[in-house]
């Protein structure tokens, strides 16, 4: 073997190690599709709870009443738990299939990078909610989620960064038109997840 071939192989192995060590590549695209589906189901349930018989694209003048708060929180929590559970399960399966450890330095780092903006946003939104600021829930959760994705994108496939930017834009739009909060919510957490999940699935999972 010529030294050039040897060095070429060295370079390839370095590149592979650098990527493997910094990126959690087991994230399943399918879990994005599922999370988006749960979000759409949740948004429909919320629509029947707070908006029906108004059309789903109607601008809401009235804000959420206190009496609806608990069922809405239950729906949101159910969507969150179902998304996390299927994300965990599918990604774990993908890691096992590839013979790679699921819980290691890289996934630990990913979780920390995701959780810092996400937990901040969650608490921030909850505190405002408790003070009766219902209108900020949709925009602030979308924006903080987008920031969390961008913060964690060095540990994920590069495309996730663009999902983050999109969530922030939708969040800002939701802040501009708070009466369309539910619609933007369905767009950001539902449609975008399904689209990105499908793209990732086609690109990396097959």
């Amino acid at each position, binding site marked *: 073997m010529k030294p*050039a071939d040897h060095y070429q192989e*060295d*370079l390839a192995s370095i590149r592979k*190690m650098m990527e493997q*060590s910094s990126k959690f590549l087991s994230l399943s695209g399918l879990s994005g599709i599922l999370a988006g589906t749960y979000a759409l189901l949740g948004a429909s349930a919320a629509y029947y709870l707070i908006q029906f018989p108004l059309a789903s694209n109607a601008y809401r003048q009235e804000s959420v009443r206190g009496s609806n708060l608990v069922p809405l929180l239950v729906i949101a929590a159910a969507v969150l738990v179902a998304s996390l559970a299927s994300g965990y399960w599918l990604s774990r399966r993908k890691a096992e299939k590839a013979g790679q450890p699921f819980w*290691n330095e890289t996934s630990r780092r990913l979780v920390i990078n995701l959780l810092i903006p996400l937990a901040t946003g969650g608490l921030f939104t909850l505190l405002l909610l408790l003070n009766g600021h219902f209108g900020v829930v949709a925009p602030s959760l979308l924006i903080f989620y987008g920031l969390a994705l961008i913060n964690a994108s060095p540990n994920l496939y590069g495309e996730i960064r663009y999902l983050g930017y999109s969530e922030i834009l939708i969040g800002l739009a939701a802040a501009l038109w708070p009466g369309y909060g539910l619609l933007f919510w369905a767009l950001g957490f539902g449609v975008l997840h399904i689209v990105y999940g499908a793209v990732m699935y086609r690109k990396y999972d097959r």
Partner: protein
Amino acid sequence: MKNPFDHLDRILEHRVRLQIMGVLTANDSFDFVGLKELLQTSDGNLATHLKALEREKYILVQKSFVDRKPNTRYKVTERGKQAFRKHLDAMEEVIRAQRK
């Protein structure tokens, strides 16, 4: 023309050492167990190469306790970063020279 081999770093002429330097350049720090899993080498082999890089001051070692278990983390130094970059450039040079 100068011989491109002259620019190669003798210390880094080993795949495991190059991989270690790559991982530590891509991440702030990495611990021993994580490196072992990633590089799929034996404890002894990995430890020997880490020692060699440490002796050259290419990497820093931080020992601490996590949940009462000893935890050893490694970080690349500025000197190590420069040496690694130079060595990668030299490897590319060799590849280019032999393609001609």
